[in-house]
C-alpha cells in the first residue's frame, strides 16, 4: 500500500534501532519519552518497538486518547441527553461502552430505549437528520483538533442545507494545554515528546514550539508506521544526548509547519476556546472548544439542559493517573483480573487508543 509499506522497511528499522542503542549506550538510565497520542501507544506495541528498544528508551503513554480523557461528568451528560424525548444521539463507536458514573453507559441507555446510533462520520449524523426531520439529531463531539474540524464542517453544511434538527454537543479538547498541564505538574520526568501526527496535520508542527522554548524539552511529530516512530525516537534521543531541544517534524508528508489553514479557519468560525474538564487533569482553562454564540441554535448543551447528579469516577480505576503518565496499566489492581476489554471498568480499557487496551492486547509480559 502506498505511503504505508515504504515506512515499514525492516532493514531500515533495524538500522534505526541500532543507532538509537548506540546513542544511548553510555547512559545510566533509559531516555524517557512520552508518546502523546494513543495511536502511537498502540502502534509501538503492535510493531514490538518497546521490546526492540528495551533498556535504551522508555515509552510513557500520554493523554492522547479523547475517550479516555472525557470526564465522567461529561459522559453522564451525554447519557442524559440520549434519554431526552425523541433525541437521536449520534456517536463514534468508542464512546458507547465507556462507563460514566454509577456504571452507566450509552449502550445501557440504548438498552433502556434511548436512540443511540454509532456513526463513522459526522456526515452520517447529518444523513440521520435528513431522514428524521421531526426528531432532534445530536452529534456527540468527542475528539481533539483532528476531529473537531469535521464536526465544524458538518454544522456549516447543516446551516447551508437548512437542516434545522441537527446540533452538536462539543466535548472537544485541545492538545497543547494538556501537554502543558502534565509538564507543569512536573511529577513525570520526561526527556522528550513524540508529537501527535494527525492533530499536528491540523494545528501544524509549529504549534509545539513552546515545548523547547518554555520547558526545554524536545518534540518530534511522528506518523504511525514503524519508521515514522523510530525516526522520531532517534531524533529525540539525539536531542537528549546532545542537549539541544528542538521541534522535529518526521511526518512531513502529511504535516506542514503551519498546519491546515482551511481546517483552522473552520474551527475558528464555529468554536471558541473555553475551559474543559479532563479525566485525570481536572478543569483546564482554554483547553476545550465550545460553540460560539452565533451557533447557539445548534449547541446541544444549550438546547437540552439536562440535569445530573454529581459525577463519580469508576471506583478503583487508575485511568486518571495513566493519561498523565503517572501510572502504567499494570499498576492498576483491577487490570486483567477485573477489568478486561469484554468487561471494561474504565475508558482506558474501552478505547482503541487506551493504554490499558493496548497492554491487554499486545503485551505478553505483564
Amino acid at each position, binding site marked *: 500500500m502506498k505511503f504505508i509499506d515504504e515506512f515499514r522497511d525492516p532493514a531500515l528499522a533495524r538500522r534505526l534501532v541500532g543507532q538509537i542503542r548506540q546513542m544511548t549506550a553510555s547512559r545510566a538510565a533509559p531516555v524517557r519519552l512520552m508518546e502523546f497520542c494513543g495511536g502511537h501507544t498502540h502502534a509501538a506495541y503492535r510493531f514490538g518497538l518497546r521490546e526492540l528498544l528495551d533498556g535504551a528508551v522508555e515509552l510513557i503513554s500520554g493523554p492522547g486518547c479523547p475517550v479516555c480523557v472525557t470526564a465522567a461528568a461529561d459522559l453522564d451528560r451525554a447519557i442524559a441527553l440520549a434519554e431526552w424525548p425523541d433525541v437521536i444521539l449520534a456517536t463514534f463507536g468508542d464512546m458507547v461502552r465507556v462507563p460514566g458514573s454509577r456504571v452507566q453507559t450509552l449502550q445501557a441507555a440504548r438498552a433502556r430505549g434511548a436512540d443511540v446510533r454509532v456513526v463513522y462520520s459526522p456526515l452520517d449524523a447529518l444523513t440521520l437528520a435528513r431522514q428524521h426531520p421531526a426528531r432532534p439529531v445530536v452529534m456527540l463531539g468527542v475528539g481533539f483538533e483532528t476531529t473537531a474540524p469535521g464536526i465544524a464542517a458538518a454544522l456549516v453544511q447543516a446551516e447551508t442545507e437548512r437542516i434545522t434538527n441537527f446540533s452538536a454537543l462539543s466535548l472537544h479538547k485541545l492538545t497543547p494545554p494538556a501537554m502543558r498541564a502534565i509538564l507543569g505538574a512536573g511529577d513525570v520526568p520526561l526527556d522528550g515528546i513524540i508529537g501527535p501526527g494527525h492533530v499536528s496535520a491540523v494545528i501544524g508542527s509549529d504549534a509545539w514550539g513552546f515545548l523547547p522554548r518554555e520547558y526545554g524539552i524536545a518534540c518530534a511529530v511522528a506518523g504511525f508506521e514503524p519508521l515514522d516512530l523510530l525516526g522520531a525516537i532517534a531524533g529525540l534521543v539525539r536531542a537528549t544526548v546532545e542537549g539541544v531541544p528542538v521541534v522535529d517534524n518526521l511526518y512531513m508528508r502529511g504535516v506542514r509547519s503551519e498546519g*491546515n489553514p482551511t481546517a483552522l479557519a473552520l474551527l475558528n468560525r464555529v468554536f471558541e476556546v473555553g475551559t474543559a474538564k479532563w479525566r485525570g487533569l481536572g478543569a483546564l482553562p482554554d483547553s476545550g472548544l465550545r460553540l460560539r454564540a452565533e451557533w447557539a441554535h445548534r449547541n446541544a448543551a444549550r438546547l437540552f439542559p439536562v440535569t445530573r447528579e454529581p459525577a463519580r469516577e469508576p471506583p478503583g480505576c487508575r485511568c486518571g493517573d495513566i493519561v498523565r503518565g503517572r501510572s502504567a496499566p499494570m499498576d492498576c489492581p483491577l487490570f486483567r483480573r477485573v477489568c478486561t476489554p469484554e468487561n471494561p471498568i474504565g475508558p482506558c480499557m474501552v478505547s482503541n487508543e487506551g493504554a490499558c487496551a493496548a497492554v491487554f492486547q499486545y503485551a505478553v509480559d505483564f
Partner: protein
Amino acid sequence: MCLAIPTQIIAIEATSPFPQATVVLEGVERRISLALTPEAQVGDYVLVHTGYAISRVDAVEAQETLAMLAEMTAYQ
C-alpha cells in the same frame, strides 16, 4: 480516534457547500468530504479521518523523509 488512513482520490464532485470526493478505503468505495482540503485533486493521496480529508499526502516529502532516515543511519 485520531486514526487517519492515506487513500487516493479517484473522483471529485463540486457539491455545495463543500466539494466531495470518491476514495477507495479498505477496498470499499466511499464518499468523503473535501471541506478541509478543497485544493485536493484527482489522483492525490489524502489522509482520511471520520469522513473528511484532513491533509494531502506529499509524495516528495515522503521520499525526503525516507532518504533522511537512511542518511541518519549511514555512518554507524
